[in-house]
């Protein structure tokens, strides 16, 4: 059976366009149907995926612009498989959520809203599936467009400033990346007969180390802003406060992971010397993100920002794993990217429910005491909280365990300092939980249990968290062969190692 990735890729956009043309009340249904189809496809891919193979599967490879060496190449492997699944799950959940989510501007033009959601999903899937650098850049930059409109039109207070800030920040990164991408294709082609942006060609060509260095930094800037990582997160507080919550859940759950994925897909394989060269710098940025994000999450009282800063910290862990530059770190990073998306989206959903019960306030000082009247919501929130703080037994813990182990093997000091982030995470996550559902009832709080409709969004996500917690191997075994072949081993190790370099556990004498 051939499963065409292109079908899955273009369904959301196609149905979004259809929604624009058909009567307004059909738009949400079409969008929901589209995300459900994508989810079905994604699950099929995950089940059908050959775990033992490291190479790309379901490859589509067509020449697109022959003169420039750009091809329309898509494929799935261990790196993007679970991010595609995550995208499918969260888009379905958040689209469903959008159908009954009622902010001030919700009535404005639902057709356009769902069109942008569809466009956003297509661009995210495109960036994840692309096997050509130019294609990747196109989709990566395209992601910004729908989110620009979604925030600018349907956002909360101060949305205009927030949008401007977001755009300026990401545009700077994107332009750097565009330049670097062009340079990569052209410079790598030196000594060969023709320019090509296809990943498969780039992997065989090599760049000089000083060239690699500046290309690496340009890509890193774009990725770090998108995540965001400290200190590139200036747009985050305003952006997070302004975005409509379902959109924010997608942004925080998926888009940040696309950036992390970029490091694994592009930076490590194509700039191996630079990755090695900047390893310590990247690890320190990650470490700073972990500590800074955690401390900020611990002191702010705005619920969205608690989650926002906690995301900075979590993304810090993912970057840490990627730049451990070994298999354990990379495996942990991929798993953690999936886990974090799966946890942060329901967390934003719970935040919406909590805020609705606190008279619309998003400040934890106005919340509290709803556990009595909303035991089911509280229980589900507790599971999400424990997963957020990466309690052992959750899949998040397995991710962090592998990440820290990977870093421990290369830079022990950094791993030990980073582990304090685990304690801080417990502090901020539990603080959010206790302040928002326990203690005395807040002044404006009207407690009530969540509805069946809310349950339709929240319960499947929580069940998914529990399922992956019981069997993280399900994800790990699918990504392992790709990660092992991805290897960006240090040149020294390359000389010594026999089997997949740099990836076996060294036993000390």
């Amino acid at each position, binding site marked *: 059976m051939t499963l065409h990735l292109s079908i899955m890729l273009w369904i959301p956009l196609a149905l979004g366009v259809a929604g624009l043309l058909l009567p307004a009340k059909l738009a949400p249904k079409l969008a929901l149907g589209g995300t459900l189809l994508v989810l079905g496809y994604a699950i099929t891919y995950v089940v059908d995926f050959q775990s033992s193979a490291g190479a790309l599967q379901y490859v589509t490879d067509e020449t697109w612009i022959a003169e420039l060496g750009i091809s329309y190449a898509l494929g799935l492997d261990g790196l993007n498989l679970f991010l595609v699944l995550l995208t499918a799950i969260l888009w379905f959940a958040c689209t469903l959520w959008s159908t009954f989510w009622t902010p001030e501007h919700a009535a404005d033009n639902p057709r356009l809203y769902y069109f942008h959601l569809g466009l956003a999903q297509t661009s995210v899937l495109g960036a994840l599936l692309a096997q050509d650098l130019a294609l990747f850049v196109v989709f990566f930059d395209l992601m910004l467009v729908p989110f620009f409109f979604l925030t600018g039109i349907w956002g909360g207070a101060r949305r205009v400033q927030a949008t401007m800030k977001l755009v*300026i*920040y990401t545009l700077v990164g994107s332009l750097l990346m565009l330049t670097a991408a062009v340079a990569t294709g052209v410079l790598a082609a030196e000594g060969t007969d023709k320019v090509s942006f296809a990943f498969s060609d780039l992997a065989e060509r090599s760049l000089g180390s000083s060239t690699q260095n500046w290309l690496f930094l340009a890509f890193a800037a774009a990725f770090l802003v998108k995540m965001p990582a400290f*200190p*590139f997160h*200036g*747009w985050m507080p305003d952006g997070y406060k302004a975005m409509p919550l379902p959109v924010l859940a997608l942004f925080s759950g998926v888009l940040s992971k696309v950036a992390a994925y970029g490091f694994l897909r592009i930076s490590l394989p194509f700039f191996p010397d630079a990755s090695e060269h900047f390893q310590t710098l990247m690890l*320190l940025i990650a470490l700073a993100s972990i500590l*800074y994000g955690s*401390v*900020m999450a*611990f*002191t*702010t009282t705005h619920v969205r920002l608690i989650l926002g800063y906690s995301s900075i910290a979590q993304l810090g862990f993912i970057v840490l794993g990627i730049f451990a530059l070994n298999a*354990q770190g*990379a*495996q942990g990073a991929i798993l953690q990217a999936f886990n974090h998306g799966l946890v942060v989206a329901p967390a934003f959903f719970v935040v919406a429910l909590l805020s609705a019960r606190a008279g619309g306030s998003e400040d934890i000082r106005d919340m509290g*005491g709803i*556990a*009595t009247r909303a*035991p089911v919501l509280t*229980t589900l929130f507790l599971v999400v909280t424990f997963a957020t703080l990466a*309690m*052992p*037994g959750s899949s998040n*813990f*397995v991710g962090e*365990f*592998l990440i*820290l*182990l*990977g870093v*421990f*093997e290369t*830079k022990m*000091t*950094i791993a*030990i300092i980073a*582990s*304090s982030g*685990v*304690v*801080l995470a*417990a*502090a901020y996550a*539990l*603080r959010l939980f*206790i302040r928002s559902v*326990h*203690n*005395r009832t807040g002044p404006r709080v009207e407690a009530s249990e969540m509805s069946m409709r809310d349950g339709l969004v929240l319960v499947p996500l929580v069940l998914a968290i529990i399922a992956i917690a019981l*069997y*993280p*191997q399900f994800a*790990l*075994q699918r990504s*392992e062969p790709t990660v092992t072949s991805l290897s960006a081993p240090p040149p020294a190790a390359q000389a010594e190692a026999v089997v997949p370099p740099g*990836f*076996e*556990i060294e*036993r000390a004498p």
Partner: protein
Amino acid sequence: MTSVELFAWLTLGFPLAGMLAVALGARKLPGRSPAYVATGAMALSFASAVATLISLQGLGEEHRQVRAVAWDYAKTAGVDAQLSLLVDPLSVFMILVVAGVSTLIHVYSIAYLDSDRGYTRFFAYLNFFVFSMLLLVLAGNFVMLIVGWAFVGAASYMLISFWYRRTTATNAGIKAFIINVVGDVGLVLGTYFIFRHTGSLDFLATFEGIKEDFASNDPDLVAGCILLLVGAFAKSAQVPLHTWLPDAMEGPTPVSALIHAATMVTAGVYLIARMHPLFELAPTAADVGAVIGCLTLLIAGTIAIAATDLKRVIAYSTMSQIGYMIMAVSAGAYAAGLFHLMTHAFFKALLFMAAGSIIAAMAGQQSLDKMGGFKKAMPFTYGCMVIGGLALAGIPPFSGFFSKDEILLLIGDRGGWYWGLYVAGYAGAFLTGVYTFRMIFRAFWGAPVPEALELEEGHIHHPEVHANPATGEVEDTDVGFPGPEHHIAERETSMKVAMGTLAFLTIVGGLLQIPKVTHVIDRFLEPSFHESALFEREPSGGLIGFGLIIGTVVGLAGIGLAYVIWVKNPGMSERIRERSRGLHTFLVNTWYFDELIDFTVVRPAQWLGSFAQQTFERVFVNGLLVGGATGIVRAGSSAVRAAQTGFLRYYAALLVAGMAGVIFYFLLAS
């Protein structure tokens, strides 16, 4: 699947199933039925534990270490974590104690928690706790151990914060959870240090090759073991990570009996015993454990003498007793430490249950200052308290006597500086006698308080307005606070059954292991410690007789002193307090450990947070890094403004931090 594996999985499975049944059926289960479901699950779990024991004993001694694997959990990139259990005499010993005592505490809670509006939730939590604890002791590799370890911490958090409308309870809960996470991190890092050399996370595989992987006192092994100890100290409330335990008394009393006396806090003792092949190769780390255990037993003993909250007195005594166990297993007296773990579980659960009964009679009031003269009103509770107290004080023939003295015998027998620990152990035993009977005399002797007189006439005191005894804050009676009705052992069969059984076990439990006479525990545990040189040691004959006599004398002397101060000469305690005011303040403030942690950890973190929040984020990130001219202009003007308004010192701080960062970078890069 062999029968050993099957029964081990069942032991673990029943509490989990019980929790799910209670939680999912919460709305459909009427009256006391959630408690029956949960208690039934526990009884089945205990029965399975017994069946595990029988089928394990059916195997030859050399085959009594069974690994039961369910599926691959995280088996990738050199990591070999499976969902696996290790069933051996040590873990079977632990599941018997845990499941057995837990079942009794469930029975007790059926009545004790009745009328609490969180009744169903309570039993779901309680089942979840037992599941976690069983997972912890049955874990077959480091990852599963850490999972059980953290689940236990989470369950403890939920139960401490059970009355979540009380700010005191939620604060105590978060404190316990965070200190426990510190312990988890210790375990994780310790695991890394060991895994680095062994290349396996499985216990049996690790222990098998340990002598080839490590030289004696290898720095990595010592570091790993000390980090494991951090985990053990956090869970077992050893200094300086003990401050959560006294606060944990905010939870319902059965919780204190179950988690903060009989089971969870003994996890550290189990951990060291489980890891004994590592600790024997890292004597330095083992010595650290022994010394900290010894310090804890003394410090906690002194605090218990000054504490006035009934449950906190028992909590400090728990800390102190666990100090003995930690000292024992660190010094190689494994069987003795585990024996004390078992007897302590019996008598300490009994003491907490009795305390719960009297607290119920006081309508939730826990202060010893307000109690007195309950002897006549509560004879059954009094009897149980005295039996538990005598065992705790180490008076023969009660169980605590045999187990505590065996620990000290074996430690004294090692000679050298261990004599210091030996002497300190007896000093601690003296303190134990004093504080235990101070508590009993103050609560049960003397003139009866109004609540006691009311009870003698047949009424249990119920206040009109419910207030948190700790803060005086009026309770939110909606839910999430102790129920309006209170239940005492004299009136409730289920409480009587649980306490009676424990009292019986407290009296006879010591007979399992009497020096030179019976060796049940030693023999049973032998296969788990077959490669240990320290396990085989026998105390020399002379020390045995001497130790048994001195143990009795010291315990009786402590009780006698308590009698003199709190019964014979009323007012003497005030006079002593007056004369040594400084010392008293020091002890009442529990050696200022809370303040120390607050000053060194909590405040700097908060200061950093508010600095980041108010200055760094606003000026640096938003000011300097927002792209475009406006950002630069704004940053420039804000810098000028900041300089004028005294923000200069923050910039100075920033500069220093930046330089430190650069230096740090080069250090790491080099």
